[in-house]
């Protein structure tokens, strides 16, 4: 027996060293722990390199790798006052760096930057047990910060394995003997993640949603979002034509209207300096209203964030949903800038009359910059001098676009002189903004109040999801003329290129290839790519709708339907606490159920007995059986031998022999038991 014990110690000399280290308060984890944690940290930091200044992720990675080098060259501990000073200077330098970079230590970007560099630093200097847990916890924080920047399926799918790696690191930390193999650890960590899933779902559904962001996210969070602008200049819309980004998605409740009626209304432009078109002064709605002449078309608009208040409603809505309103241009606006994906339930009437205009409107809708576009103005005046009606002038202009050699293209030649004259009489090549601007100038010069409407036109049916996706490339500009007491839509682009309005941009530009991959759209490769894209987009839409789109109002609807009624978020928090408590208790009871009988009480009492002996200097080893321990204890505390054996036998009778359930007897015997007095 003695030789066997010696063997054990000899075979695991490392264990002995570790036990010694543990007694000195320095619990040295296995090298593999550092590897797990390093891998998880690096993977969590990596996506930040897309937006953070490169030195931030790089310095974190360098710190982590240097720790690995220290660990694997067996120099895990570095002490001494010189090193301490260097360490503190390094930490200070990193914090300073972040401050200099962002001019602050607060806010999303600076805060995340600080977290990244300091978690690398913590990793480097971690020594004690506590440090290791802190380092691991920092890893979880790093994972969370990634969702400040991206909440796509891809990010979630990427982060799940990183969480598993971190859990494996925790397992490793608590497995000093390295009894679990690597696949086992991963398997356990995965199981832990799955076990947490029910709790996660409860928190997801019940955690009180706030209408705004939880903390003030600075404006810089939303820079770089593309989309329509409130300024239109030659080339400003055509530059969107190669953008495959989705602007919004639409799901029609019934049959969708034909594509050539899909005009999604954006900002209305009134004022121009001859080249650039602006919205000008925003006015109250006043008596402007739309009257419907056809049945309503119900649809759901899922709008991507674009950092504007604009809601691209299908022409023409008659009523604004809650928390939205019309301006005088009859453009639908949200109360706040749309900074996250939002969803609106809307109704449109494709046959409508948009009425309401006062003298200021007419003045603005007829204004032209002085002494510009002389040839255009002259042409319009010729038409007016012929005594033509407004309707006839409009038709004449459209006929001119249709009959002359006008050409619809996304790459028009640069206009160096007077942009309208040069386009109308010389180049005759342009995108929708050229036609809309030229047409408006013509009309205004002919005395017909006209304004430019920007927005999107068309949309692509996703056959997988059954919804329409409207891309940035569908951005469009058309006009509205005041005719017969209402604003009427006239789209000059339709006169030049009917296909643009009927089939979308791809139909109008047959030579265009798939811009991303240079593949012909009609080939089978192009079609396969399109089908993959459709499926992916449909999946994303579900994710947006059900996961990211689970807002305050949706939460209320869902919970009310489930019979959970609450007035404010505090009440919801109480519901949440109650349900989480019930869930955890149920899970706990279920886990305990296997061992729940009155032997449990006996075990608790026996543990108390063992603690008494431990305080007297004889701790029970975790693997020591009751009779073996009793023998050892009886030898040590000879005077108490009888009591020790009696207590042990009582315990054995309850827990192992099913011979008695007399817990009280055991309790009394243990209460009376005093190992300390025995020796004296």
């Amino acid at each position, binding site marked *: 027996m003695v030789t*066997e*014990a010696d*063997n*054990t110690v*000899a*075979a*695991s000399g490392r264990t002995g060293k570790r036990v010694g280290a543990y007694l000195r308060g320095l619990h040295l984890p296995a090298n593999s722990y550092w590897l797990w944690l390093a891998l998880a940290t690096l993977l969590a930091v990596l996506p930040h390199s897309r937006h953070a200044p490169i030195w931030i992720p790089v310095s974190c990675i360098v710190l982590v790798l240097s720790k690995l080098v220290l660990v694997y060259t067996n120099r895990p501990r570095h002490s001494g006052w010189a090193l301490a000073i260097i360490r503190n200077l390094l930490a200070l330098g990193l914090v300073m760096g972040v401050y200099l970079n962002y001019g602050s230590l607060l806010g999303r970007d600076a805060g995340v930057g600080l977290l990244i560099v300091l978690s690398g630093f913590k990793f480097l200097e971690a020594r004690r047990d506590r440090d290791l847990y802190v380092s691991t916890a920092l890893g979880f924080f790093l994972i969370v910060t990634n969702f400040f920047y991206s909440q796509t399926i891809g990010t979630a799918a990427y982060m799940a394995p990183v969480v598993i790696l971190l859990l494996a690191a925790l397992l490793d930390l608590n497995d000093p*003997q*390295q*009894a*679990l*193999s690597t696949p*086992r650890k991963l398997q356990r960590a995965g199981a832990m993640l799955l076990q947490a899933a029910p709790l996660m779902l409860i928190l997801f559904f019940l955690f009180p949603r706030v209408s705004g962001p939880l903390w003030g996210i600075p404006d810089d969070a939303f820079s770089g979002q593309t989309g329509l602008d409130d300024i239109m200049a030659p080339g400003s819309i055509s530059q969107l034509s190669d953008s495959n980004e989705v602007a919004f998605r639409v799901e029609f409740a019934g049959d969708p209207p034909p594509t050539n009626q899909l005009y999604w209304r954006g900002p209305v432009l009134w004022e121009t300096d001859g080249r650039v078109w602006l919205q000008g002064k925003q006015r109250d709605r006043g008596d402007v209203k739309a009257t419907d002449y056809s049945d309503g078309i119900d649809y759901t608009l899922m709008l991507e964030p674009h950092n504007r208040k604009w809601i691209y409603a299908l022409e023409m809505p008659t009523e604004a949903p809650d928390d939205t309103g019309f301006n005088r241009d009859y453009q639908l606006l949200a109360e706040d800038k749309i900074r996250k994906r939002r969803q609106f339930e809307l109704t449109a009437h494709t046959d409508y009359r948009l009425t309401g205009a006062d003298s200021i409107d007419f003045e603005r809708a007829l204004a032209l910059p002085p002494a510009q576009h002389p040839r255009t103005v002259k042409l319009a005046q010729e038409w007016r001098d012929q005594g033509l009606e407004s309707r006839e002038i409009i038709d004449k202009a459209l006929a001119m676009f249709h009959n002359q050699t006008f050409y619809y293209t996304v790459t028009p030649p640069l206009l160096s002189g007077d942009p309208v004259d040069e386009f109308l009489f010389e180049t005759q090549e342009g995108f929708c903004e050229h036609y809309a601007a030229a047409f408006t100038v013509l009309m205004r010069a002919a005395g017909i109040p006209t304004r430019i409407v920007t927005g999107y036109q068309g949309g692509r049916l996703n056959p997988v999801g059954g919804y329409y996706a409207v891309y940035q490339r569908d951005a469009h500009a058309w006009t509205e003329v005041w005719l017969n007491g209402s604003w009427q839509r006239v789209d000059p682009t339709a006169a030049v290129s009917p296909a643009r309005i009927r089939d979308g941009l791809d139909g109008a530009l047959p030579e265009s290839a798939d811009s991303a991959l240079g593949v012909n759209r009609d080939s089978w490769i192009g079609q396969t790519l399109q089908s993959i894209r459709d499926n992916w987009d449909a999946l994303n839409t579900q994710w947006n709708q059900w996961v990211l789109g689970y807002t305050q109002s949706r939460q209320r609807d869902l919970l009310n339907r489930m019979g959970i009624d609450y007035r404010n978020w505090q009440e919801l928090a109480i519901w949440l606490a109650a349900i989480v408590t019930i869930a955890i208790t149920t899970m706990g009871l279920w886990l305990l159920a*296997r*061992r729940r*009988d009155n*032997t449990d009480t006996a*075990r608790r009492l026996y543990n108390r007995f063992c603690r008494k002996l431990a305080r007297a200097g004889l701790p029970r*080893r*975790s*693997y*020591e*059986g*009751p*009779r*073996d321990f009793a023998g050892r204890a009886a030898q040590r505390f000879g005077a108490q031998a009888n009591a020790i054996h009696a207590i042990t036998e009582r315990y*054995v*009778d309850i*827990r*192992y*022999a*099913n*011979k008695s359930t007399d817990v009280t007897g055991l309790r009394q015997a243990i209460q009376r038991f005093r190992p300390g007095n025995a020796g004296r």
Partner: protein
Amino acid sequence: MSVPQQAFARSVRDELQGVISEANGIILGKEHVIRLALTCLIARGHLLIEDQPGVGKTTMAHMLAKTLGLSFQRIQFTSDLLPADILGVSIYNRESSAFDFHPGPIFSQVILADEVNRATPRTQSALLEAMEEYQVTTEGETRPLPKPFFVIATQNPANQIGTFPLPESQLDRFMMRIELGYPDARAERELLAGRSRRELLEDMQSVLQPERLLHMQQEATNIHVAPALLDYLQDLLEFSRESRHYVSGLSPRAGLAILRCAQAWALLHGHAEVLPDDIQAVLPSVIGHRLQSSLEQNDPGAGALARNLIEQVPIP
């Protein structure tokens, strides 16, 4: 758990104490090993004794048979031993014009299979089949073996010349593997000064009747096993399967063997219930030949491996 059972367990302990003290007189200073061997016998398992030649393996087997009053046959395994030498043969009887079966040495209550790893695998498997099935099939006829049936096999360490090591699947048929080891100084002196063991064996009286042994075997399976104990056993098994210290984990059969042996061990010590202590006492012998260290070098040895397993698993 009833009081009579407790009383029975005590009486068994006293009876077996007689066997043990009798045996102690012959095999000196090996009480623990003798207890293990008796445990194996009460748990209806076959025993494998592995050690150097000359430490008393054969004497041990002989002595066990004798004290328990069982019929005994010894088979010396050699490389030219054939299955029929063990199982028996049918010989044509001219008078009755029929084949008469002449049972082999296996039809005996205790078989000492000496140096079992010196026979060819074919012969080994003839014996091992009988061990598993408790019956022998020769020439299309199945014949039951006597009860109790107990095989004590001895083998020399595998690294000796001229051995066919038993494959793992066949090692598994043995419930326990024990090692005798050298006697300590005092026992050795007594051995050298005393009478020859052979003479002593011949003078020995049987202490137990075979019926009594069968009864004990039956009673051992009734020793109480609490859920708490099964929890502990399962924790041990699970640990052996999850840990990477071992090539592969313990099989369910190994788990059953541990439990049966722990029950027998408890009975042998007059207890009416199994404790983790009992499991720990039998564990090294039960799993020593079933568990392999995954360390290529520095194999810590079977005993240390089992001790390591015990120390890693806390008692729930």
